[in-house]
């Protein structure tokens, strides 16, 4: 069992005019076996939440706590968090020129497991994970994310989810920019992950269409750096019909 517990999390970024508060007290508990969906308008702070949990240096935590199974992860370095079982599929995966996907995956797997994967099964595992994401085997020899299409980058993130096998996966708009076939492929990948034991998923999205493939147990409406409302899957349908209007303050 793992539990990711976010309590009253407050986060700022540095701007030219001084610090700007983005997260204004986020509280959320995600336990293994659960899938939570976060929906919210552009700029409401969803990616900020995801990056802050992963430990991106751009974000300053000004208050609150995040624990994984009781351990304070805010005290951990970025890579320690990953080794503790966190995974972030990024909204904009980063290109790393000259580093092959194969080398990257092997290095990451070795770091996470604390030992090098067995050569024979590993190659098979990688090929399988790529194939399940409809990525040609030749991707292994390409530089990480370099020249990948938007959809290929997202599928590469889910291939990593498959291979690195974390306990808690945060998926930041993994569905954005996917055509309908890719959406299906990615959803299948996430669902296979969910079927494994003790996995927790936090899925950030703008669209209910992915929620038809990946059924969430909880839906949270995220507005202006906070969770404005939480509910079951029905909440997503309601958002689809009515938008965020009732949560966003009417302009004065």
């Amino acid at each position, binding site marked *: 069992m793992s539990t990711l517990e976010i309590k009253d999390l407050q986060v700022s970024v540095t701007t030219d005019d001084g610090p700007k508060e983005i997260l204004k007290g986020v509280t959320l508990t995600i336990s293994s076996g659960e899938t939570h969906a976060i929906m919210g308008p552009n700029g409401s702070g969803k990616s900020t939440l995801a990056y802050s949990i*992963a*430990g*991106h*240096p*751009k974000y300053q935590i000004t208050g609150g706590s995040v624990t994984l199974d009781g351990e304070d992860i805010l005290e951990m*370095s*970025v*890579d320690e*968090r*990953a*080794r503790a079982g966190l*995974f*972030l599929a*990024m909204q904009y*995966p*980063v*290109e*790393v*020129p*000259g*580093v092959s996907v194969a*080398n*990257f995956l092997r*290095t*990451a797997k070795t*770091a*996470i497991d604390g030992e090098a994967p067995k050569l024979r099964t590993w190659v098979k595992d990688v090929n399988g994970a790529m194939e399940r994401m409809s990525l040609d085997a030749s991707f292994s020899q390409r*530089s*990480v994310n370099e020249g990948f299409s938007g959809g290929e980058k997202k599928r590469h993130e889910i291939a*990593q989810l498959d291979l*690195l096998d974390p306990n808690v996966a945060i998926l930041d708009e993994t569905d954005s920019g996917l055509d309908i076939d890719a959406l299906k492929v990615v959803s299948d990948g996430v669902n296979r992950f969910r079927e494994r034991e003790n996995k927790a998923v936090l899925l950030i999205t703008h669209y209910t269409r992915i929620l038809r493939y990946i059924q969430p147990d909880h839906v949270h409406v995220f507005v202006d750096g906070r969770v404005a409302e939480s509910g079951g899957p029905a909440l997503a349908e309601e958002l689809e019909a009515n938008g965020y209007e009732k949560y966003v303050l009417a302009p004065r």
Partner: protein
Amino acid sequence: MTVTEASRESVAAVLEQDRVESHLNPPPSYDLTDHPVPTGREEVWRFTPIKRLRGILDGESSADALTWQTEVPEGITISTITAEEARDLGELPPNERPAALAVANAGGATLVDVPAEFASDEPLVLRLSGDSVDDLVWGHLVFRVGNHAEVTIVLVHTGSARYCTTTSYVVGDGAQVRILSLQDWEDDAVHLGRDSIRVGRDANVRHAAVTFGGDLVRMHTNVEYDGPGGEAELLGLYFADEGQHIEHRLFADHNAPKTKSNVVYKGALQGEGAHTVWIGNVLIRKVAEGIETYEENRNLVLTDGCQADSVPNLEIETGEIEGAGHASATARFDDEQLFYLRSRGVSEKEAQRLVVHGFFNDLIRKIDIPSVEEQLLATVEAELAKNVLKEI
């Protein structure tokens, strides 16, 4: 090919243009009085810490030599010729004092003769090593590559010396030549080198300068063309540590139409006082219509206290060209790249190691000399171990 009036004209123009001077490069001459001892304020010397040349530019005569170890594929011969004979073979005359001194003091040149239509999978390897920085060594080498020959030439410099040398590659028509000059000196060595390349008609030359070692290394690579259709790819990789001065100066002289030059140099710097200089000069003469040139220099600064100077220069005397461009960038580690790798569990140091390898990888692949690729990767690794991966 029939000689048309137009190309007759351009040949005549080339001859005329021979005397046109580039403001970026002093005029070539064998005469030492044309190359006075620099003060350090000259444009071509302003980046170089002249004191650390340990008196090389005084031009004392010396009989010291490097130890040569050679692997010579069958068909290639090595002999000794006089400086006059080297001149007659068509080497590019010296365009600065060190090269002129090397010709004057070496007492003749080593001629490496690659016959026309030579072909072999085996590279020609010359391993030159010095015993001590007290040794002052003058070098003069000429590589003559016959028409349509295909050859790989590897020069490896190790040990220590004060080595001042000029090396000419006179490349015949249609030849395919790959050259690697590896400077893997010990910490105190001083090396002033000039590689000049005359690219034959429709010939293709890929020259790579790889510099890791030495207290001060200053390398020139000069290219000229013997006719249209010649292509030169000039690659470079360097890694400067604490206190090291590594300088690469490129000059591609497009003196013939339809020629190409492509320059890619990448360097990493680490440690207090690590200094690299890259000067990329390209001259497109009036006659050089339809040419294509691109030059690029990228530096990765790994620690504080380093300095990377990077100066691309393009002199264009005709607008009738296919393309000309340059790029120069000096950067530190990219936080987003490190974050991405670390978010997959990879430690900070390991992530940095991956990024540096990635930075050099495509270049090492481009150099494409399988017999040294492993060694280059291993040397990059050893350099990284000095700083980036050092456990504190």
